[in-house]
């Protein structure tokens, strides 16, 4: 007896009723018993499958249904099968009888990898992009947003669908990859690494595709973004294939400790960047009055922490002997990173919605510790400076461990400790100045127009370009100023000032001037923006509306109070 999933009524399925005559035949009986067992097993499993199906992401279910019916999926699946057959037959034919003693696995692996990389790096990410962009074109995005699907569910569903497609494509080539191992010339770690690279690239590019689709609702912008994405995907494919070629051509590369460290470092960078991109995509589809900033700020901190942990670990392993060389490089990476993040964070709305204010930290300690994570342009500015300051302070500690911050003697490779320390100080100051001026410009522009986050980013880009480009232009175009050397006119130009500082090309007067003026301007800018931050921090927490409290109580009623003593017990009727 089968149980109908829809109505719960009993139905006779394919299991026939056993008649006494049939029972007399032992062979038939065994077959029927087996059928009964199978039927019972399915009946037992069915509710579990249904339970599981209910908990699957709705978008994943829908997208998988659609994908399995779509022509595009069928086409690529068949193409992959044909490609794998052609490579196998062609490869074996070319190798010929020497297949038994020639190490041909590496070549075939590369060929299979190419066949796999095209759908994984081009088709899957572009399909992910199209699946979200098409929601806008087919007028279904509104229907999704007005449903109770959370932004996480939307992005997870789309990403999950990409993973399902990826697994299907991988399953086509899995037997072929096993075949390459049998042919010799390639070891299991190499196969595993190549597969991991392909899967991780596909996953990351799919996420970038979703990010591109979520970033704007304007159709012309979507057209431009789709072209950029297509170009980026082909570039990624080329990079992946080149890496695969390099990996398969190296010999016992995997055994080296440095390789393992590099792979681990790349993995941590991948994971933290993936988390940041994932949260960005989620927050782009989150409703505007929600807090779309705090989670991203935590992700940025996590990324910086991972970066510093790796750099710190590597430097500590060598007793901080190379900290003077690492400081400028890491300072540049951190400076550019926080300049970009700061240009976006300072574009946030200064007015917090009531929804956000409901969750603001209430205590003084909470506001002090978590205030930097609250949304807002001024808190964003302070957040960036605090993070960059952390980087600078940690490297200064490293420099002091290596012989002191003010040590100007160069015994090993340049720069000297004092140059590295000055570089960090000036780098931090320049970021504080650029972001501070940018933030003030945005505040002024907001009095007359709406400034979006993209607008904020562009303001900062123009500001940095102007502050670096205009002094150079003036120095080269005005006859009495023309000089190939560094002049005081280049003080706003971070690129020239910092590079000459590292190369020890600044005169001692120029060095002194830069060290005094740039941090002083940065301090002024910081103080001005601190006033804005104080205004932002003044926004108080608000209570949830009565209707929300009432609804919460209906959803999760408080437990009934039990009598604590005999006097509180109700009297018997």
């Amino acid at each position: 007896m089968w149980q109908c999933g829809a109505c719960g009524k009993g139905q006779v399925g394919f299991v026939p009723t056993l008649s006494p005559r049939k029972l007399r035949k032992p062979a038939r009986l065994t077959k029927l018993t087996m059928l009964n067992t199978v039927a019972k097993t399915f009946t037992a499993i069915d509710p579990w499958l249904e339970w599981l199906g209910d908990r699957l992401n709705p978008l994943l279910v829908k997208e998988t249904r659609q994908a399995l019916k779509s022509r595009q999926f069928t086409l690529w699946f068949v193409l992959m099968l044909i490609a794998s057959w052609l490579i196998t037959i062609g490869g074996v034919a070319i190798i010929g009888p020497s297949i038994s003693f020639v190490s041909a696995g590496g070549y075939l692996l590369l060929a299979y990898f190419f066949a796999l990389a095209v759908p994984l790096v081009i088709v899957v990410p572009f399909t992910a992009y199209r699946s979200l962009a098409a929601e806008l074109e087919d007028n279904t995005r509104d229907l999704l947003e007005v449903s109770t699907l959370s932004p996480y569910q939307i992005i997870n569903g789309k990403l999950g669908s990409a993973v399902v497609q990826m697994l299907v494509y991988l399953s086509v080539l899995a037997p072929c990859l096993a075949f390459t191992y049998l042919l010799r010339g390639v070891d299991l770690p190499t196969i595993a690494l190549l597969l991991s690279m392909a899967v991780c690239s596909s996953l990351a590019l799919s996420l970038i595709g979703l990010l591109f689709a979520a970033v704007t609702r304007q159709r012309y912008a979507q057209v431009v973004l789709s072209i950029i994405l297509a170009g980026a995907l082909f570039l990624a494919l080329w990079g992946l294939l080149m890496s695969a070629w390099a990996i398969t051509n190296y010999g016992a590369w995997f055994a080296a400790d440095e390789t393992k460290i590099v792979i681990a470092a790349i993995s941590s960078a991948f994971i933290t960047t993936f988390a940041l991109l994932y949260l960005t995509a989620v927050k782009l589809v989150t409703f505007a009055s929600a807090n779309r900033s705090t989670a991203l700020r935590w992700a940025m901190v996590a990324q910086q922490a991972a970066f510093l942990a790796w750099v710190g670990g590597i430097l500590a392993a060598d007793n901080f002997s190379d900290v003077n060389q690492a400081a400028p490089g890491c300072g540049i990476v951190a400076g550019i990173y926080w300049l970009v993040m700061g240009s976006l964070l300072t574009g946030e709305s200064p007015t917090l919605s009531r929804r956000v204010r409901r969750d603001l930290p209430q205590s003084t300690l909470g506001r002090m510790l978590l205030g930097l994570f609250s949304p807002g342009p001024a808190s964003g500015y302070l957040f960036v400076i605090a993070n960059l300051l952390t980087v600078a302070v940690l490297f200064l500690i490293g420099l002091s461990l290596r012989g002191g911050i003010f040590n100007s003697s160069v015994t090993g490779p340049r720069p000297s400790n004092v140059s590295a320390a000055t570089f960090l100080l000036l780098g931090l100051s320049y970021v504080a100045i650029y972001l501070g001026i940018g933030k003030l410009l945005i505040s002024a522009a907001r009095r007359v127009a709406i400034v979006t986050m993209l607008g904020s980013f562009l303001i900062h880009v123009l500001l940095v370009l102007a502050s670096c480009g205009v002094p150079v232009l003036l120095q080269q175009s005005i006859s009495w100023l023309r000089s190939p050397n560094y002049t005081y006119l280049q003080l706003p130009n971070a690129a020239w000032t910092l590079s000459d500082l590292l190369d020890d090309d600044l005169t001692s007067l120029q060095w002194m001037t830069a060290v005094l003026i740039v941090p002083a301007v940065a301090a002024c800018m910081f103080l001005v923006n601190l006033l804005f931050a104080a205004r932002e921090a003044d926004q108080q927490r608000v209570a949830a509306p009565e209707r929300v409290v009432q609804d919460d109580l209906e959803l999760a009623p408080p437990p009934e109070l039990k009598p604590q003593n005999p006097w509180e017990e109700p009297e018997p009727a």
Partner: protein
Amino acid sequence: MKATHPQIELRNLHRWFGSTHAVNDISFEVAAGEVFGYIGPNGAGKTTSMRILSTLDEPHSGDAFVDGFSVLEDPDRVRSRLGFMPDYYGAYQDVNVREYLDFFARAYGLRGGERKRAIEFAMDFTELHPLATKPIDGLSKGMKQRLCLGRTMIHDPSVMVLDEPAAGLDPRARIELREMIRRLADLGKAILISSHILTELAEMVDKIGIIEQGRLLAVGSVAEISARVTPDSIVRIRLLEEAQSLAKWLESHDHVADLEANGAQLKFRHAGGEAEQAELLAKIIAAGFRPVEFATQTKSLEDVFLQVTKGRVQ
């Protein structure tokens, strides 16, 4: 527990698109079980205010509430209580009718038997059972509208916002849709509906809001608005005899103007209310006239709409 708040409330809503003031200080309320007709010319601001109510757009000032929850502060709670049917048809490729409803049932968090019952109810209600396995791309306009309505009601929302649901439908489909909407209101749902087909709308709405150039010009029942814009009513009397003598008799009466006698029929404008009309009828009978019909001509929704709006666009 009976809700003390209106199911839909728009409070001083403003929305600009550049220099265009698309929604200008709009406020109204819709109670549970009420059908509110939202009418106005194209570009009046109906869709914008409906999108704000559905959490798809944000007002520049003011707020809107669904079941007491602010669309700005608690859009997630609003979404679980609201069904929105936009004026366009959002379709997925390679999906049939049942799969489409199944997806939205899942999207609204319905699970197991609850989801199956919801799909069955929606398909029963919209009579889509025979088309359950048909791809939605191949459905007719009327069937697509039914499917949209099914999708809108799949999670049993207490509030439904329907933007031009009858647009492009044939007369039979329109009548069926009208009946469905009335049945939904009878189930206790607050329904905000916009339509340009005023005759259809007049038969299903309890209240209307007339909007033009982003401003709400009038709110209330058709009769209330009609009485507000033109307090005089047209009275028609049919007598057993010639109406000329009654016309002469009425000339001296207060509240009566524009008398038109035509055979046994008489038409005139009456400035009083229903009590004054009853009093007048009693006087006519007392004066020896023999009326067989005494009727007040009600204004249609179209008349009211034309009187209230000026046909301006922004």
